[in-house]
């Protein structure tokens, strides 16, 4: 099944390589990986989607924690969460078809962000399913190019454990009081 991980890492050169290398080395195939800044300076957040079973997911989590620059790993697969993908799709559009395309774009609550004489660029965000659906109906007009960000995900409600303490540790301010996630239980 698909597992979605939110991985907090130190924003340092080479960290993406370390994380990606780990997946390759342990023979896991990354379906999508996105990375960007977080609300805490010096901390980046990756959303990594992997097709693996529960056993594989636990192994991945444990191995990610072994990377010195990885601060926190949350498997948000089974938690209530929202996932979004952003796509830009360039579609052939003649004066005759342009209106049809615009109507479809409205139905999908997407937007046209550029119009050229014989093509349009459509921007959409949503779950991967929704974007797949839009692409499907646009195919008949001719999809010229497409780019997608891959999945970004966030658990709903309050934060899982504290990145607060991660942020403090990055700033070197944290005390050494064990937090819940320090007190790891690996019972099965």
């Amino acid at each position, binding site marked *: 099944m698909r597992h979605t991980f939110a991985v907090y890492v130190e924003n340092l050169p080479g960290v993406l*390589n370390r994380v990606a290398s780990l997946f390759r080395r342990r023979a896991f195939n990354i379906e999508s990986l996105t990375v960007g800044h977080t609300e805490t300076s010096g901390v980046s957040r990756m959303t990594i989607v992997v097709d693996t079973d529960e056993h594989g997911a636990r192994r991945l989590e444990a191995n990610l924690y072994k990377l010195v620059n990885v601060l*926190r790993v949350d498997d948000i697969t089974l938690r209530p969460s929202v996932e979004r993908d952003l796509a830009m799709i360039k579609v052939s559009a003649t004066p005759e078809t342009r209106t049809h395309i615009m109507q479809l774009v409205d139905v999908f609550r997407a937007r046209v962000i550029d119009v050229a004489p014989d093509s349009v660029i459509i921007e959409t965000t949503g779950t991967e399913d929704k974007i797949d659906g839009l692409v499907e109906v646009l195919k008949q007009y001719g999809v010229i190019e497409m780019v997608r960000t891959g999945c970004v995900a966030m658990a709903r409600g309050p934060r899982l454990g504290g990145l607060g303490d991660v942020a403090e540790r990055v700033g070197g301010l944290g005390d050494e009081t064990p937090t819940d996630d*320090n007190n790891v239980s*690996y019972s099965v």
Partner: protein
Amino acid sequence: MKRTGAQILWEALGREGVSTVFGYPGGAILPAYDALLEFPVKHVLVRHEQGATHMADGYARAGGGVGVAIATSGPGATNMVTGIATAMMDSSPIVCITGQVGSKLIGSDAFQETDITGVTLPITKHNYLITRAQDVARAVKEAFYVAKSGRPGPVLIDITKDAQQASCEVEWDDSEVKLPGYRPDLRATREVYQQAIDMINDAKRPIIFAGHGIMLSGAMDVVRAVAEHANIPVAMTLLGIGSLPAQHPLNLGMMGMHGEAWVNSAIQEADLLLGFGMRFDDRVTGNLATYAPNAKKIHIDIDPAEFNKNVKVDVALAGDLRSVLEEMLPHISKGDRSAWLGTIDEMKGNVAVRDIQNLPDNGHLYAAHVINDLWRVTEGNAIVVTDVGQHQMWEAQYYKHEHPRSLITSGGLGTMGFALPAAVGAKFACPEKEVWAVVGDGGFQMTQAELSTIAQEQLKVNIAIINNGYLGMVRQWQEFFYERRYAATPLLNPDFVKLAEAHGLSGIAVTERAGVVPGVEAAREQAGAVVLDFKVEQEDSVFPMVPAGADLDDMIRRPSPIVETAADT
């Protein structure tokens, strides 16, 4: 006062307590070598950078500290790769320092440029690329901390030439290292402890699996206390040998592919396995589908990534083995497990007749005899460093190790060529101890250049070559599984005695059993290193053997009662 990056490097190493480094100079590391002369560090000039890493590894394993290897960029750095991977697989704390081309040249395919941090990314615990002098001190401090804490492992620091040359003010920071994402101090929850304790107290047929982690955690006495208190027999992994004295009544010996037959049989009948600082490697388990079918499993390890990796366990406790066991010990009830111990004793029944030691001298020189005599003469007190192959397994079977850190061998990676340089490192770590390198004729030739290092350093390390004229373990597999088609396994060797003499060392050739003890004694008496060339039975095999992927108790046994080797038939 301003210091160059090179000076900071040596001072930082000194602050970590480094007194000996193993290395080989070259262009990109020259500024560091130039500064070396100002510092009280012993530098051992190796003959190949792989040797430097194995020496650092042997130094760390024998002495319990961190070993340091140093090399230049490009080929110097890539030559270290095998040694780094060896240390990674066996959780050995080493710090490798490599020179790198100037930071302006990085990425330009400059002379002797290799992306060594990229190359070593999957085989180091962590690595650094340092391009500024002011980052050197912190990198060294972090590297040592990462290398030796938690599950130990190799750390590489790649320092550009300009970072070595540049000067900066340095303030030494004595505070603890803070790495926000690095948590070596895991602890299991209370409930997990209780589960484990209940399982131990309920077990009728438990076995402790003693791994390398016992040594790394310094948990020898508490493991022994648990075993003795609860009367639980202890089986060894290859790297666990020495964690409990061989003569201890609860020590069963080695398990796994070439483990003792009764140990593997006992594992298959056990109702509880207690993995202490080991990782259920495929050489230990055999066929996972039929492995220990009646046993529950408790796994204690500092690395949670090992849990359920190969064998699914019932209870896993993350943490430092010593502190975990200290917490558990008071709650473990005294056990009378005489029935179980009696069962295991019965399993030993037919072993004596198969034991090569009990056979009359038929004129053949068997490697097992050599190892056994070496053990008797050295009274089991030597540090024995082995290479990889048949001799390694015979050593594990026939040299009875009474002390921790007295068997040093490449277990996980199985690196041929490990023994000779690792023995050099072990001798530097423990100069007062007797050190023997036990090597095959194949592996010895992979790093025999380090004989020159031994000669140059006037080191007293004795070398026992188990010379059967074959790549013996591969030959054995060819005999068993490839219908004796000996593709590329026969070796035409040099005269090892003359080779020793060419290095200014002595060599002794031994061709019969009666010559073994005198040869070993003569080697011990000489001041310098001695190469003993034991010309042993060519087509002898290591028994018992669990073929790769077979059930653990499905062992090929030594033919009994007469030892029939290929040479006899």
